[in-house]
Structure formats: structure tokens, C-alpha cells
């Protein structure tokens, strides 16, 4: 079960690096942090999962969305 | 494992399958949102009720009630703001008659 989630995390991270649309990259990073929270939970570490859920899903997404809003959505390169 | 838990967990699995199928086959964001958000809300609610049957009377029941109440409040609001985001940013809803007409025009060419 953990192997499936690790493969899924790998897929979402690679696509978030490759994609041109910044908002879609932020959404994929949200999925990435959800899955990593789930993996910490499956490995019997609820405190780490709590921190990951608060920081990765909430604060990290808010900060990245704010940065995308200030700089522009399309990747220029 | 009593009967109520089995019934509600089975209902949750059924609605979860149908939500995923609907998200994959439907043509535009609004109909996908119909399938995903609302069918999945029903499935997650069914899972919670099944878990309440499993845990019985105790400290886990209180936390499950709090989580269920919060999910019941936040889920329609998040579905509504996604739909409002799509509506405000100008996604055109798919319509049956348009698709049929376009199909007929393509046949005539």
C-alpha cells in the first residue's frame, strides 16, 4: 500500500516540475503534501502527519498561491 | 462487525466507484463537479456512519461526530466555491443540444 502511494508521490512531483502552468503546479504540490501526510500516518507517526497536514496543505499552499498571484501564471522559459 | 457497519461501508464503496467513473467520463467541469463532489460527499458520509457503528460508545464517537459535523458544513461550501470560480472565470457549460447540433453539422461537411 505504501509503495503505491510512493509511486503516486513521484508522479505528482515530476509533473509539478515539468508543467508550464504555475497554478496547476501548486495544485499538484497540494496533492503531493496530502499523500506524504498519508504516508506518515501509515508509518505510525501521527505528530509528524499533523504538522505536515497543517504546514504542507494549509500554509505552504497559501504562500505559494500568493507568490504566483504576485508574479504571474505562465512560466516564461 | 455488525450489519449496519457492513451496509454503510458497502454504500460508501459503491458511491466512491461511481464518483470516480463520473469524473472520468463527463464532458465539462460543472458535470464533473456534480459527479465528484456530491457523490463523494455521500460516500465519505457513509464511511463515517459505518465507522460510528464500529467504534460504539466511547471517546472515539465524540471525535467522529465533530469531524462529521465539520465535513458536513465544509464540503458543500468548497464545491460551491469551485463552481463559482469556474462560473466567474467564464467556462461555458456543456449542453446536449449544442453537441447534437455540432455533430450534425460535422456530418454535413
Amino acid at each position, binding site marked *: 500500500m505504501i509503495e503505491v502511494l510512493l509511486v*503516486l508521490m513521484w508522479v*505528482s512531483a515530476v509533473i509539478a516540475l515539468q508543467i508550464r502552468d504555475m*497554478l496547476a503546479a501548486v495544485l499538484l504540490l497540494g496533492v503531493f503534501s496530502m499523500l506524504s501526510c498519508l504516508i506518515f*500516518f501509515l508509518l505510525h507517526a501521527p505528530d509528524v502527519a499533523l504538522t505536515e497536514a497543517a504546514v504542507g496543505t494549509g500554509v505552504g499552499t497559501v504562500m505559494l498561491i500568493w507568490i504566483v498571484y504576485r508574479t504571474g501564471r505562465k512560466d516564461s522559459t | 462487525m455488525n450489519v449496519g457497519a457492513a451496509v454503510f461501508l458497502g454504500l*460508501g464503496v459503491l458511491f466512491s466507484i461511481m464518483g470516480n467513473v463520473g469524473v472520468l467520463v463527463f464532458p465539462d467541469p460543472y458535470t464533473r463537479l456534480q459527479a465528484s463532489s456530491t457523490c463523494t460527499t455521500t460516500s465519505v458520509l457513509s464511511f463515517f456512519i459505518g465507522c460510528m457503528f464500529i467504534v460504539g460508545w466511547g471517546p472515539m464517537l465524540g471525535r467522529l461526530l465533530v469531524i462529521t459535523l465539520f465535513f458536513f458544513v465544509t464540503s458543500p461550501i468548497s464545491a460551491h466555491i469551485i463552481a463559482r470560480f469556474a462560473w466567474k472565470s467564464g467556462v461555458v457549460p456543456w449542453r446536449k443540444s449544442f453537441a447534437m447540433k455540432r455533430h450534425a453539422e460535422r456530418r454535413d461537411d
Partner: protein
Amino acid sequence: MLAWVIRFMVLSIVVSMVRVVIGPTVADRMIGLNLVAAQTLALLVLISVSMERSIYLDVALVYDIFGFVGILVMTRYFSGKKGEL
């Protein structure tokens, strides 16, 4: 029975990742994210019920609150910009 339901929900997350990856517009990706978030919440509750520890349910509650805040902020910032989707 709970173990089978947990395995099924992991497979269901795999299927719903497809819409996040291929979605043509951002609204589609957001729908996929919402779907993954709801199923992850159900999975957290199911795992903590199968482990029978009441402490583990706190993670599910915090996760629910912060996922909602994340989606709220996403739509809040970008609903002002028209015609970019």
C-alpha cells in the same frame, strides 16, 4: 473488512489522480484535488478506526480544516482575474 476498504480507497485515490494530471482547465484540476482531499480524509478516519487509537483522529480534523482553507485561498485569489483560464 476494514483492511479491504482501506486498500480499495488507495486504489480509488490512484484513479482520481488521473483527472488532476490530465485536466484541461484549472477548474478540472481543482475538482481532482477536492476529490483526493475528501478521499484522503476518509482514509485517515478508516485507518485510525482500524488502529483503535482516539489520538489519531486529531490528524483527520486538522487535515479537514486546512484543506478547506487551502481551497478557499486558491479560489479567492484567482477569481478576480478574468479571461486567464
